[in-house]
């Protein structure tokens, strides 16, 4: 009887670890294989391995950052910028990502003058990117439930002090819940419904209308960051950092 118990125990312990061995290698193992390739300056292989992980749907700031580095080493500047920007969304304020993005941007032909946003918008965005949208939502829900509990305590407690404490706590939790919910929305709009895009074509003309016969308004080169404003068929209306708008074909850019 005792033996059976031990065997069962072992089975339970080893089952989850043994399972991936039968299937494919873990993405983490694949990731370190890419790191080894990169260390020995085989950037092409490293990029292939990491892109494989990316294509299977895994996401992490380190993965994006490394893909960006490999792209940069292979002289694919727009690819590097795209992945640095993506990594920045997952890990805002990371020193290395920021630095490499700056380096990659110096290779871009077009001078991009990013208009610095209002400081509270920047702070708001920064905070909202610290935690994923789902975690913000969970925090918000938990705060809401605790706020309701606090309100109940406020309503039924007979102790005066408890009433005071629970009143303020409930108020704070309600505010917290509302804030985190708005962070969650902001994070969603920044990460998942991003309107920013990186130009991938070596050079592309911005047209005045969404067809090839439109007047050329401006010329953009690879690596420039633009904002998508509108979409008509195979054309995107984009806005440059200086505020100009124009239409470009959708295959010449890649959304962040």
């Amino acid at each position: 009887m005792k033996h059976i118990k031990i065997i069962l125990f072992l089975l339970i312990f080893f089952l989850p670890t043994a399972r991936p061995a039968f299937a494919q290698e873990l993405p983490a193992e694949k990731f370190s294989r890419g790191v080894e390739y990169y260390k020995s300056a085989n950037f092409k292989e490293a990029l292939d391995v990491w892109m494989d992980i990316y294509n299977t749907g895994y996401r992490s700031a380190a993965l994006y950052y490394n893909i960006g580095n490999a792209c940069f080493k292979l002289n694919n500047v727009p690819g590097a910028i795209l992945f640095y920007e993506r990594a920045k969304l997952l890990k805002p304020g990371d020193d290395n990502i920021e630095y490499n993005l700056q380096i990659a941007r110096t290779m871009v032909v077009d001078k991009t003058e990013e208009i610095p946003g209002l400081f509270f918008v920047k702070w708001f965005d920064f905070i909202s990117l610290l935690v994923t949208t789902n975690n913000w939502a969970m925090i918000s829900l938990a705060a809401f439930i605790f706020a309701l509990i606090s309100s109940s305590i406020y309503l039924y407690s007979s102790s005066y002090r408890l009433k005071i404490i629970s009143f303020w706590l409930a108020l704070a939790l309600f505010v917290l819940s509302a804030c985190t919910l708005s962070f969650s929305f902001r994070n969603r709009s920044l990460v998942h419904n991003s309107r920013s895009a990186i130009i991938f074509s070596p050079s592309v003309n911005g047209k005045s209308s969404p067809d090839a016969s439109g007047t050329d308004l401006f010329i953009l080169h690879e690596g420039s960051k633009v904002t998508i404003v509108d979409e008509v068929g195979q054309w995107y209306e984009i806005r440059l950092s200086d505020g100009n708008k124009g239409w470009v074909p959708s295959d010449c850019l890649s959304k962040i």
Partner: protein
Amino acid sequence: MKLHRLILSLLLIVLRLNSQGQDITVAADYPGVVRTGEQFTITWTINSGGGEFVPPSFDGFYKLMGPQTSYSSSTQIINGKITRETTYSYSYYLQAVNSGNFVLAPATFIYKNRTYSSDSIRIEVTGTGSNQQGRTMPGASGNEITEPVRETKDDIFLNLSVNKKDVYIGEHIVATVKIYTKVDISGISEIKYPGFEGFLRTDLNTPPLTSLQRENVNGTIYGTGIIQQFLIYPQVSGEITIDPVQIKVLIQQKSGRSDPFFGDFFATYTTVPRVVVSPAVKIKSRPLPETKPDDFSGIVGKISLAASLDKDSVKVNDAVNLKIILSGTGNLRLANAPDLKLPPDIEVYDPKISDDLKNTTEGTSGRKIFEYLLIPRHHGEYSIPPVSFSYFDVSTKKYEKLTVPGLHFYASRSDQPGTGITVFGGVSKEDVKYLGRDIRFIDQNPGSLNKPMNILTSKRSFYTAYAGAFILFLAILFVRREHVRRNSDIAVVRNRKAAKVAGKRLKTAKACLKEGPSDTFYDEILKAIWGYLSDKLNIPVSDLTRNRAVESLRERGIAEEQIDKLVSVLDACEYARYAPSSSGTEAARLYEDASDFISYVENPVR
């Protein structure tokens, strides 16, 4: 003439030079090509006298005269240094008899039991040729009467010859400008060299044209002379044309017939200028192979590399000399300074470049020296990385890489107590030197590799959770409010709680019963019943009497037997309180009756 020689000889006797120490050489001077029947001279010149001169046998030639001995001496005093030269020459006048190639044995000179010999003499005698009289060598001109030469196209021509026509870029070519003539020329008045476009040109030292050599060109004897030699390096690939050389020669033309008695001696000559143009030369210049090494210096040829430091340990801020020497053959003049990858703490100045190059027909050879002045600014061990240099080897048609191993030197702390004044606090801080910019290294930690989940905020269930929580909150609020509302009616509460309170009392009573019937037991039973009745019938305990309770119970429609039972229980209890002698079974029956009554009342009332 003889007088002059005599005076000279006397002078020399006075000065009496000692020629024992100097090397004795025997040189022969002769025309390389002669015609049959032509008279010519062979002269041996010896820079020493006093010995015995033995000429070779002149087989194949007819000796007309000789030896004719002459002697000359010169003394030079330059800045107090006296150099003296004596030469003895022995001349033989010969006539060629048969055509063919002849080799004369070397002439020997025996001086103080030592034998010195000249080179052997090779003379080509051409058979035919009637009126091609070579008068070009003044020393060899015969004195027979010749017809005046009317110059034709072939009489005089110019040739620009190159030693190679198919070369690599940067490979050296020797270009020779040579004049061929059958007529007398008195001089060259104008030389126009081509621009050598596409080449790097270096003039080779060419002795001035004083005498013409005889040469057999397709059976015709020409007087030839090299006007100029060039060393040229092609700089572009493809077929390059060297433009023709153009010279203006002055031809001596005899005017009028020779005097029958005095021969040419009184003949008059006129000088006629004539322009002679060489043919253009085409050279195929091949580009170097594509796989150029990074450190390719541009040198084509064969070189070697050496590097050295003059000191291997210095004080900080003292200079070290790094010398890199390139030596060999090739277009060294074009060599760039090798790229030194010095540690940034060494201050380095532009190299001093000196060269010691010689241009010969073998190409430019010699050495080029790059001298770097290195000043270590901090103490410590310094290493100069290996210097490498690549060049293109024409013979193997490959790029060759030269490397000298890295060099090391040590810079010790400088002790500068010489001034005697030590100033502290003036330590100059340096900014960190940034040498290059590159992206930072990858992140080796994969972080949390997650597949992104569905976004909660765009799902309805998420908001349902909010709503659910709120509805639950409201429900609790409502239930609670109802509770409070009901609690506010005391009578109803008491009514509702009556059975509970009574049950508690009865429980206490039952606990007492276990220890035997006592006052407490009956007391508890009474308290339970009276309390219950008071709560149930909504009559204050102070106003409660037995009659009133019975009446009230009757009003509520309680069965008469139950009322009787209650009354009997009350009687028994009150009696037992004052006469506590009843048995345990009776007490148990009392308890049963009391609880029966309560449960009975509880049912119809509720």
